[in-house]
């Protein structure tokens, strides 16, 4: 028999859990309802057109979509060697000791730095460096743009992938490592052929988390992406991302349709995140079965 306390407790957790679900569903519905005007106004060209001209009521968000995907992918690409190396260092070589704790703390700290500070760092340190490189390469030295934003994003997402990858690498059973050593494998061979394949699903989950973080990052990106509403012609060109466009333009949005367009951008951003999450989960499942 369930006591009265049990029943109250069960009622409370049901209440709290369903509130969370209701809030999430509510957000979805609000996003959808409020973006209806612009969806009616633009049709499919809301996503397919690259003409973002609020003054003439033209709202094509392709440049933001492209900007978001490019910066996110590029930042993952840049961050991957660093995060995986860090994970291998902490999961294989430095498993105990003061140095390991120190490094782990630094990585945790990196995840906790407010994004506006990353933005500042990008603006003050990275932009001048990129400008010098651009002058050397004989291209217009904007400094800001896709490339700079990707580097800053990469720095921001390293701790996410690194922490999870370290965790799964240290979960690889020691008897598998020993089996490798007993066959005459070197440490590198054991890491490459035994540890990494065994941990790859977990590492991929870490990469996915980093991707989710990169795709929605707003503040740091907005400060260094250049905020140009066009499809970028090179990785050094200024561009814009969905999150950054919303943050930048919301205060300027005077007409109802403009507001609706920005909410529509939010809806697309939300859907892209969901799609990537599910695609990632599907890949993880496939990896596990194999």
């Amino acid at each position, binding site marked *: 028999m369930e006591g009265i306390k049990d029943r109250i407790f069960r009622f409370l957790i049901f209440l709290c859990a369903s509130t969370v679900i209701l809030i999430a569903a509510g957000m979805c519905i609000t996003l959808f309802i409020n973006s209806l005007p612009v969806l009616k106004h633009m049709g499919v060209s809301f996503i397919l057109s690259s003409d973002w001209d609020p003054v003439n009521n033209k709202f094509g968000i392709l440049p933001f979509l492209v900007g978001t995907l490019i910066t996110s992918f590029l930042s993952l690409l840049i961050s991957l060697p660093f995060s995986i190396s860090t994970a291998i260092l902490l999961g294989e070589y430095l498993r105990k000791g003061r140095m390991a704790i120190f490094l782990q703390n630094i990585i945790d700290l990196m995840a906790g730095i407010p994004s506006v500070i990353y933005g500042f760092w990008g603006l003050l340190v990275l932009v001048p460096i990129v400008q010098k490189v651009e002058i050397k390469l004989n291209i217009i030295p904007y400094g800001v743009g896709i490339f700079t934003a990707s580097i800053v994003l990469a720095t921001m997402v390293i701790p996410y992938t690194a922490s999870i990858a370290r965790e799964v690498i240290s979960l690889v059973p020691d008897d598998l490592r020993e089996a490798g050593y007993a*066959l005459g494998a070197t440490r590198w061979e054991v890491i490459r052929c035994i540890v990494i394949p065994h941990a790859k699903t977990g590492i991929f989950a870490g990469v996915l988390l980093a991707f989710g973080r990169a795709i929605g990052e707003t503040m740091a990106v907005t400060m260094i992406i250049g905020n140009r509403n066009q499809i970028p012609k090179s990785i050094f060109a200024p561009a814009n991302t969905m999150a950054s466009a919303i943050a930048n333009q919301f205060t300027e949005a005077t007409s109802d349709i403009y507001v609706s367009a920005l909410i529509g951008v939010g809806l697309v951003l939300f859907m892209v995140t969901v799609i990537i999450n599910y695609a990632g989960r599907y890949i993880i499942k496939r990896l596990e079965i194999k």
Partner: protein
Amino acid sequence: MESNIITTRRLRAYYGFDLILKDIDISIPRNRITAIIGPSGCGKTTLLRCFNRLHELTPGAKIEGKILLEGNDILKLNPIEVRRKIGMVFQKPNPFPNMSIYDNVIAGYKLNGTKQSKEKLDEIVESSLKKAGLWNEVKDSLYKKGIYLSGGQQQRLCIARALAMNPEVLLLDEPTSALDPKSSAYIEEVLVELKKTVTIIIVTHNIAQAGRISDYTAFLYLGRLIEFGPTEKVFTAPKNLQTERYLSGKFG
């Protein structure tokens, strides 16, 4: 007089400051099964792990003295080379879960990046699995994952994996302690067959198993080699009181 393949001189092994093996002098005869027995914590496994230098992988572990393999001190050789000559099978079957049965057998070659022709590899896989007594059971499913095999089959797969490297010595650390009696018996048969081509050193908790399959028995107690000799003699007429008491189950 037997010819010896491994000889140790005043072998000492440490974990940190703990002396685990105390001046072990033992000579392992070629193409024989040598069983290492003794109560838990006596240093059996440590001794085994000194032979292929796995002991020193543990942080703080240290080996002193000499271990001669065919007259060469393995402590002065490259551990990688040593481990290719001295294979090992562990207590818990540990096939690589992400590899097929085929790839598990040739894992040593894959790890080292040694290039071999497909025919040569097929040959190695077939002969190793046959030696390990697993070929007939898996010949039609070589590309399935090794972890779907039963425990006993997995352990024989691990034996095949070690044999594929053509080792001179095969070390086994309580290879049947995680298996049912039937699988254990089959592995014992396989080992007796194997000693024609490879020297076998087996650590076991199972005194009866040592009696059944080994030609020589070493009894270790508290890090010292108490008694070593032909299994028959050690079992029927032990010279040492400790050995007699252990074998008769008075302590363990």
